[in-house]
């Protein structure tokens, strides 16, 4: 039986980065041996870390910069990254939590069905694309900073949040409202909701995306999520309420309902 806490160095004996399949096998084996807390040091671009891992009570700390597809198909563990992530963090994720003390770039949360992703910094394009939800499974992606175009494209469920803040060690700076999100916001959205802190210009909205009133229900839904966000990044939740939140939701759950003619001629 392995120790509860295990440390893995992502550098080899010659101080060169381990190939991803070698590193990932080490992580898989440590978890299968019963480790509950795996600390991975010196990560440098290794892809597919924690791919499809199902260990529910496992915590993985990553120091450095993981490569693409961190937590792809993730189904249980909590991953905390002390650094920034590349693309496709939490790709097709099913359960678990990913906390990023930095940025996480393009297509974070692609097609996720459940689980939570909290990013302290900024993100790139197409974040939360085609997220979906089912029964009590609902994916959540929160960015403390700003994101680029096509935020929540094709979205079929779940919750996306962009807060537009620069979260420093002891202070929080605001980003101008129109820089929090960009154009083609929620293009093709047919489920779920996008929350943007600040005003969203009408022309940012993509096909089928609508600005809707932010109600008490939304507040009730968001509060525990934002509290969790603030806990990870050690900031008071009051900062968030200083600016109004805009809700973007689909205009219809069947945006293409009458598009086709099913008759055969």
């Amino acid at each position, binding site marked *: 039986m392995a120790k509860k806490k295990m440390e893995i160095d992502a550098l080899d004996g010659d101080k060169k980065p381990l190939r991803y*399949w070698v590193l*990932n096998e080490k992580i898989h084996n440590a978890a299968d041996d019963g480790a509950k807390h795996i600390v991975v040091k010196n990560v440098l671009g290794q892809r597919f870390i924690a791919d*499809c891992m199902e260990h529910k009570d496992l915590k993985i700390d990553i120091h450095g910069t993981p490569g693409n*597809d961190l937590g792809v198909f993730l189904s249980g563990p909590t991953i905390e990254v002390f650094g920034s992530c590349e693309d496709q963090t939490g790709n*097709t994720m099913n359960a678990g939590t990913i906390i990023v003390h930095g940025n996480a770039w393009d297509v974070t949360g692609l097609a996720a069905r459940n689980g939570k992703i909290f990013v302290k910094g900024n993100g790139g394009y197409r974040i939360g694309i085609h997220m979906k939800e089912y029964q009590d499974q609902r994916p959540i992606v929160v960015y403390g900073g700003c994101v680029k175009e096509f935020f929540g494209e094709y979205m079929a469920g779940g919750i996306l949040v962009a807060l537009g803040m620069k979260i420093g060690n002891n202070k929080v700076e605001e980003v101008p409202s129109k820089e929090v999100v960009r154009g083609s916001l929620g293009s093709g959205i047919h489920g779920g909701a996008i929350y943007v802190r600040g005003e969203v210009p009408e022309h940012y909205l993509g096909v089928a995306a609508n600005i809707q009133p932010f109600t008490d229900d939304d507040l009730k839904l968001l509060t525990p999520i934002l509290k969790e966000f603030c806990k990870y990044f050690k900031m008071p939740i009051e900062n968030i309420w200083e600016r109004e939140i805009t809700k973007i939701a689909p205009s219809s759950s*069947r945006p293409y309902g*009458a598009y*086709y003619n099913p008759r*055969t001629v």
Partner: protein
Amino acid sequence: MPEKMEGIRIEIPSRYKVNIDREKCKICKRCTINCTFDTLSFNGERIVADHDNCVACQRCSAKCPQEAITIIDNQMAFPFHAAYDERIRRIGWEQASTGGVMLASCGNDLPYPSIFDDLVLDAAQVTNPAIDPLREPIETKCFLGAKPAKLEFTETGDEITLKTNLPPNIELSTPIMVGQMSLGSISYNAQIALFKAALEVGTLVGTGEGGLHPDFYKYGKIINSEVASGRFGVDANYLKKVAALEIKIGQGAKPGHGGHLPGEKTSKLISETRMIPKGTDALSPYPHHDIYSIEDLQQLIFALKEATRYRVPVGVKIAAVHNSAAIASGMVRAGADFITLDGFRGGTGATPRIIRDHAGIPIELAIATVDQRLREEGIRHKTTLCAGGSIRYSADLVKALALGADVAMICTPVLIAMGCRVCQQCHRGTCAWGIATQNPAYSQRLNIEVGARRIANLFHAWTEELREICGAMGIDSVESFIGNRDRLRYVGPNPKIADIMDVKHAGEAWG
């Protein structure tokens, strides 16, 4: 979308007519229960037909105990015009009436010439004796997965052990697999029948992009899970409890198109399998949004290999298109253990008609050019080449193998084996034969055991016919027949086709 307007629908003569022999009809009303297209009803006095709704699925006629019903072509005279034939006119009238994109299913129904039909096979005469498949063994077994370039052994004393690490391979008893049909496109009963038949035969069945219902985990060892752009139903069970994984980039019936399961078809069962709320549209994006290049494809292939810790082969499926050979080369280099080419006659549960009928290329050309390209580049062994989407019967199977495919992938033929009449209404979800429907009342019309038996019979018949052909050519193993284009000859009208396929014209001798 255009607004509905009074009188907007152009009155079009129905395509079919339901003839009811009034002398034979005992008004038992069985036909009205069996009809799922709102064609037949009882008006209080007799059975009446709304011919407009008839799709010639033949259910009523088959179930009428009096044999009183005949479906006939409604042979209305249309003013003659060779270019604006009846089909083109009907499309125009329909589109003017609704403004909708015409939806279709099944496969391309246009009379494009079949290249398979222009190929003839060789037979052994005098100098290379034929083999009798009834008395002598002819091996049809094959393996799905990458093969090593060479085998290395270590010798210690009398012991010889294999040193080479073998990539994961799945044994198939016959070079035929069932392609990708989701629960959604086909019914629960139809999918179980497929799984049961495949277990008996020893081959794989694709899940389509529909997820895997928990009831079906037990069939995992014969399942090939499809990972497509919507990632519906993709979870740890879907990836880890199955024999093989296949990334779907494209489909022969709809190259370049995504998927759209209309909300009406998202029943409780579908909702559980795809893991989406009941009644919502299930949209599969046109591309995978994590794949814009071969390098990105490699990333998803290895995400799947890592997920299964390299225990199962991971394949990639594309529609057969102009540039298939170059793409296939990239796919193999990206690590695809098997690649599937889907021809332009491939089937679908729903697709815009314009794409079904006009996009993609014939599978024969794709098989030959991909096989050729991979051989030239010395990477043919790194992948198993599967081909589907036009393989209608065993003759096509044989010719596909000779052109260079390792395994044929079939869908429509197994539906036909379950009793499908090819009425091409799969997208309506009201299949009267219980095959392409999610309505439990219709689905239960398909007897699972009988369906499974019929599919297994079809596989048996095709495999025996494949043995017959191999025997006639003096070949005792299907694996040595694959890519053996010198046993084919072209008899069609266009020698350019023969050139592209590197097949000689009939009359040319061995080279």
